[in-house]
């Protein structure tokens, strides 16, 4: 697992990847901060319960509120990236090449996922730092006080937002990995993943309100929002954990037992 972890990091440790990641993190920080700060309303105003308020932005967690809200929209992007990465290993034949060198399949898969999630953790940290910087620059223009942002409570809120984002990314990543391993085709896996987590879950939710308490994509949305009126954070975290565990175990079994014929 450790050797595969190092090998996967070797693929990611490139100048082009670094430039792309920094550019994406900068763009994320800029868009998320501008969108959140410009759309912030006074508490109690119409629509204030759906996004950040001027008051919440001035509190201890205000520095990372744009990050937290922005990350809640990248779930499907994470799903897409992990499907493309894992299913791409099948379609390119590179899983075959790797397995001829590293036959411990579960270790190979675990090392690869650990490396990708480590990379995602670094990207998230960078995005959070840049978002805090952008928020600090943006706050004075909206008359938002920043005095409580950098105290102990502020750092605690930042750590909590980061952990929450990481849990969400890890969950989407695991679901993407499982889908890629089951289907082994990038277009088919992407089609299933996007249609399920996008239109299918939300249209079903319109017809069956309890869907938000059971469907993984909706539960992840609830988790990213810190709980909703329908789904508590505890329920969302518990069910997401069960989905992720089931997906990880099932994909490990399938990956370990199935012939690699591509």
């Amino acid at each position, binding site marked *: 697992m450790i050797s595969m972890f190092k090998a996967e990091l070797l693929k990611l440790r*490139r100048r082009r990847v670094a430039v792309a990641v920094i550019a994406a993190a900068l763009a994320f920080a800029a868009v998320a901060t501008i969108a959140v700060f410009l759309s912030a309303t006074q508490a109690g105003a119409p629509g204030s319960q759906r996004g950040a308020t001027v008051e919440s932005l001035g509190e201890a967690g205000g520095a990372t509120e744009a990050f937290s809200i922005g990350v809640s929209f990248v779930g499907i992007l994470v799903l897409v990236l992990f499907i493309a990465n894992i299913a791409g290993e099948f379609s390119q034949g*590179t899983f075959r090449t790797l397995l001829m060198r590293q036959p411990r399949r579960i270790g190979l898969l675990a090392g690869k996922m650990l490396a990708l999630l480590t990379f995602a953790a670094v990207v998230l940290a960078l995005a959070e730092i840049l978002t805090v910087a952008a928020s600090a620059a943006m706050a004075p223009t909206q008359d938002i006080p920043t005095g409580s942002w950098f105290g102990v409570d502020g750092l605690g809120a930042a750590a909590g937002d980061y952990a929450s984002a990481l849990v969400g990314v890890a969950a989407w990543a695991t679901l993407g990995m499982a889908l890629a391993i089951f289907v082994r085709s990038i277009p088919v896996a992407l089609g299933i993943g996007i249609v399920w987590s996008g239109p299918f879950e939300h249209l079903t939710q319109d017809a069956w309100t309890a869907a938000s308490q059971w469907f993984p994509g909706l539960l992840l949305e609830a988790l990213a929002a810190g709980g909703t009126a329908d789904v508590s954070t505890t329920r969302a975290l518990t069910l997401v954990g069960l989905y992720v565990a089931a997906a990880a175990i099932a994909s490990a079994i399938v990956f370990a037992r199935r012939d690699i*014929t591509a």
Partner: protein
Amino acid sequence: MNTATAPGGVRMTRPTAPDPPSAVCLRGLTKSYGDRVAVDSLTIDVPAGVVAGFVGPNGAGKTTTMAMLLGVVTPTAGDGTVLGEPLDDPESYLGRVGALIEGPAFYPALTGARNLAVLATAAGHDPAQIPGLLELVGLQARGDDRVRGYSFGMKQRLGIAAALLGDPRLLILDEPINGLDPAGVHEMRGLIGRLASGERTVLVSSHVLTELEQVCDWLIVIDGGRLLFQGPAAELMDRSGSRLVVAPEHPGDLDRLRGLLFAAGHDSQPGEDHLQIAVDGADPRGLAAAVNRAASSGGIVLAELRIARTSLEDRYLTMMNGGDR
């Protein structure tokens, strides 16, 4: 070496005592996909240190067999050993095996050298060997280019370099000549010859039989997943496929020469101006001497006396058509 006929009329050659260690030893290896049997009770031995050609038409089961050797496909039945380790424990031997099967597969966005570094790291090999391997396969000047820009031949050579990571004792190459231009074929043939030096065993599959004829000293022929022949390549070509071509100085002596040869116990087939005698497992040089003596005893001067070897291609096609199994 001695020969034996296995059930089903398969001609097999087994090493005589003391047996050289087998690099690959398979017993009844079978792979089925539903009702379709891709590999059917395959029993083969590849002696250590040989270049073994694995021959068969497309769909014969060559790649599936190789994939089972490499642990990426699980056999339905049968067992065996690879480098003395059990086939069902690929972890115990894959560190000493290098392979290129089903074409070269690399990350197109990475350079050739970085691709090799990824594989070396995953396998726990020393990446310091990469420049030497790139030089061996003639890619030292392109190692820092992304694989996306490589030609197919360059990818094949990079695949060979990847297979050589860790200096493997057994090298398994699936159709390495496939898709190469004539210059590439020539180059690859030379490379395979160089790779076979020392104690390394090379198992190379191809349906381009004339190429294997030049590099292999051991042959395994399969069709429909079943073994047709295994043994030294020279044996396959010699056995009943070689013939003696005899031509008298004067074509008018042809019938008399044929009579002399018949009297000496050698049946011949007449051609326009020559006779052909099947070697049929006899010592070709001894047969030629006997023919020369018979002609000389009748006062006939021979203008031509040579052994015509049947090409591997001819022998292979004969076997594929159901003859001489």
